[in-house]
């Protein structure tokens, strides 16, 4: 047996065959008709439309044969497609190519074969129309011609199938295109109606700012028909743009200009449109650069703007309302607080103890109500974005030290120590607001710390972020409350506002302030128990970072911690009155305010300047900043005994030589008088030495001073 060679166009022939998508499809009448006619016309049992695939021949139509395909290697058709005319084997037994072919020696016992090649338009022979007999046969010229005609008929059918497939494909892609076009039209319509019906004005601009499209709202907001905006350069308009302070808006600051020049989004810029014959409209403008993958710079800019005139008016009304309400609540409270305070002070006559207790209760609750009003006002204004930040270059370690100093009396009363572990940092922030946050956090920490514990305020600057931490060893915050406590009126324990005197708004205010600064606040447990409240604030690129760490405990008298910043501009802005040397004749340490007023008055009448402090802690802090010519000290002070202060003075080099007068209501025993501290002081007893005499004694100490005016103590 000799296997048929492969045609020279085999790959293209196979590609053409497959493109018809006919292989392994069901039989069709159009071909069966041809094979039936062939079988009848030649009076032969088998007629086929055979397609020669890579490794088989597959029969699209088959008369008289039980199979749909046979291997190409043994096929007669494989030989037939090597010829251009009909391929005829009269007697396979006599032909060495087929004599031992299994299809000849076994079923279907082929003896006679005639196959007409089927040629496509490009000339590739895809298969045959063939007839097969079991007896030897010889065809007449007419019969060969008939086979040729039937073959061309089959070729026509193949071509038709090809055309039909192409047509089908084209119409399918047409349908797909139509579908895409339809959905594009639909989505464009949706977008267009969104853009058209939006309240926000939307324009597109070319890179020079010229308006290329504008929606109706854009025209409405700007007071001209939208069509008139088209082609108009951004800065050539019949209206004037004003900035919030009423000055002409700087064209270089226009969001569209910024977006096209920098390629960055620029959002929510507020400006007013001042057009002749129209009331002033306030708008917020945002601009987004439009980019393409193949261009480095934006090719156009989309601007959106919103009329916020009404909203601004409402905000202003709300603002005024809150301010008026706060004022109206405060006014009667002022009278109540004043009247209660006067009664409680005893100046209107002594009260029975129980009445006094009731009055103290009324006073402290009035104070709480005032704090509540303050906090509500604060939080309302911050959350409505109306409390503008008043940012400045701020010395953070100085801010921490001052805050802790202000809270020290409270801490000492609670027996809690305060310590600052602050890096020296200058940051761009609202000092009043951040002080408020720190005051809230530290006073909370004091309230919830047991006596004997220490509270540390830690600050650090890293990667443009300022971190503040208030670390306590108090009772801690349960894990399920760590988020809730920053909400309004959400204390860890419902009784806290009553027991601890808080308003339940402190942490909500802290969070608002932090968020306004673009920062955040959260709480974590402290190692070994307690809470650590952490704040993070972006510092801005102009901030100067750490210069050197400052250790400050506030109890060593080293209160003069000035900014040590290298940058001139910043150090000048950060230097405050805190660092100026103060000169004063007398420092008065007296916790009885009415007596203090009298003494200060009397000192002033001798032209002696004075500073009054009410506790040991305040005294120590003040003496870190100034050295008086004389100290006048009460012994019974809220945070300890005046003798402690004298001991501290004696141990403090420069302060040891200051003359000290003690003015006390205590009748001192002989022993006390001989104590080391009191040997250095001159003792005057309230009730024996009257204020007038005391002050003239002080005047003697300080040299020849005469009263410049007369004072009658109350």
């Amino acid at each position, binding site marked *: 047996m000799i296997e048929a060679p492969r045609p020279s166009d085999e790959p293209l022939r196979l590609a053409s065959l497959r493109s018809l998508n006919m292989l392994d499809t069901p039989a069709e009448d159009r071909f069966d008709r041809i094979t039936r006619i062939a079988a009848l016309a030649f009076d032969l049992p088998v007629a086929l439309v055979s397609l020669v695939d890579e490794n088989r021949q597959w029969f699209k139509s088959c008369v008289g044969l039980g199979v749909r395909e046979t291997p190409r290697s043994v096929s007669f058709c494989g030989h037939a497609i090597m010829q251009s005319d009909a391929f005829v084997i009269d007697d396979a037994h006599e032909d060495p190519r087929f004599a031992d072919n299994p299809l000849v020696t076994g079923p279907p016992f082929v003896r006679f074969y005639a196959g007409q090649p089927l040629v496509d338009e490009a000339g590739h022979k895809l298969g045959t129309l063939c007839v097969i007999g079991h007896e030897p046969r010889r065809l007449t010229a007419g019969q060969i011609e008939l086979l040729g005609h039937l073959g061309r008929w089959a070729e026509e059918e193949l071509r038709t199938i090809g055309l039909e497939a192409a047509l089908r494909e084209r119409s399918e892609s047409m349908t797909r295109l139509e579908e895409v076009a339809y959905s594009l039209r639909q989505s464009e319509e949706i977008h267009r109606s969104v853009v058209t019906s939006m309240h926000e004005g939307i324009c597109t601009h070319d890179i020079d700012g010229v308006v290329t499209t504008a929606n109706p709202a854009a025209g409405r907001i700007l007071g001209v028909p939208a069509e008139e905006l088209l082609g108009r350069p951004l800065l050539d308009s019949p209206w004037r743009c004003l900035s919030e302070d009423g000055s002409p808006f700087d064209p270089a600051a226009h969001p569209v200009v910024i977006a096209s020049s920098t390629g960055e989004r620029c959002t929510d810029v507020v400006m007013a449109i001042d057009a002749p014959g129209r009331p002033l409209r306030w708008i917020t403008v945002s601009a987004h650069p439009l980019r393409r993958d193949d261009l480095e710079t934006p090719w156009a800019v989309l601007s959106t703007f919103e009329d916020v005139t009404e909203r601004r008016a409402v905000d202003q009304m709300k603002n005024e309302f809150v*301010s008026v309400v*706060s*004022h109206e609540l*405060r*006014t*009667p*409270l*002022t*009278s*109540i*607080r*004043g*009247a209660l*305070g*006067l009664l409680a*002070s005893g*100046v*209107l006559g002594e009260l029975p103890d129980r009445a006094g207790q009731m009055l103290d209760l009324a006073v402290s609750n*009035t104070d709480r109500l*005032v704090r509540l*009003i*303050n906090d509500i*006002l*604060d939080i309302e*204004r911050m959350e409505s974005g109306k*409390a*503008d930040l*008043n940012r400045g270059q701020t010395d953070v370690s100085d801010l921490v030290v001052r805050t802790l100093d202000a809270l020290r009396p409270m801490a000492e009363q609670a027996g809690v120590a305060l310590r600052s572990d602050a890096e020296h940092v200058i940051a761009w922030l609202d000092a*009043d607001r951040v002080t408020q946050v720190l005051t809230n956090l530290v006073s909370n920490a004091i309230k919830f710390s047991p006596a004997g514990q220490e509270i540390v305020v830690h600050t650090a600057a890293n990667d443009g972020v300022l971190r503040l931490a208030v670390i306590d060893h108090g009772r801690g915050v349960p894990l399920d409350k760590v988020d809730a406590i920053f909400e309004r009126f959400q204390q860890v324990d419902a009784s806290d506002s009553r027991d601890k005197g808080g308003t339940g708004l402190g942490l909500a205010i802290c969070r608002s302030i932090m968020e306004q600064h673009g920062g955040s606040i959260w709480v974590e447990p402290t190692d070994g128990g307690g809470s650590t409240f952490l704040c993070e604030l972006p510092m801005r690129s102009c901030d100067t970072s750490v210069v050197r760490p400052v250790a400050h405990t506030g109890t060593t008298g080293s209160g003069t911690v000035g900014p040590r910043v290298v940058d001139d501009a910043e150090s000048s802005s950060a230097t405050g009155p805190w660092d100026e040397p103060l000169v004063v004749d007398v420092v008065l340490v007296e916790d009885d*305010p*009415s007596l*203090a*007023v*009298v003494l*200060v*008055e009397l000192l*002033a*009448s001798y032209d002696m*300047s*004075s500073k*009054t402090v009410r506790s040991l802690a305040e005294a120590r802090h003040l003496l870190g900043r100034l050295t008086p010519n004389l100290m006048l000290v009460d012994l019974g002070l809220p945070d300890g005994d005046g003798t402690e202060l004298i001991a501290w003075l004696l141990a403090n080099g420069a302060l040891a030589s200051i003359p000290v007068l003690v003015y006390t209501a205590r009748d001192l025993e002989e022993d006390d008088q001989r104590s080391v501290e009191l040997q250095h002081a001159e003792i005057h007893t309230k009730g024996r030495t009257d204020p007038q005499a005391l002050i003239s004694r002080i005047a003697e100490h300080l040299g020849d001073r005469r009263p410049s*005016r*007369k*004072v*009658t*103590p*109350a």
Partner: protein
Amino acid sequence: MSRRILIIDDEADIREVAQMSLELIAGWQVLTASSGTEGIELASSQQPEAVLLDVMMPGLDGPQTLQLLQANERTHAIPVIFLTAKAQTSEQRLLRDLGARGVIAKPFDPVTLAHQVVELLDSP
């Protein structure tokens, strides 16, 4: 001797509480006026050492009164301290920037009111 202080406030109750506080606790002499106009007249004729001035008043408000006091050569040297129910630090800063010696927030503590006034008057 005692300090002579003028209180200008449209609220009679507050005038009374402040007056009693300064008189009884500090032993000062207190004049009161219920409006800016009346206050300017009293300040000019009585020459008090200082004026405690309410901010929100019908007619002349606090800042306007301050402006008139500063413009009048008989009263321009008298230090003015605002007594205000406005709590915001920013508002208080604005008031100080008008040229007031200081700001005391309402409600005030009657026991330390005189002390607060003295501190502000004596501050540089």
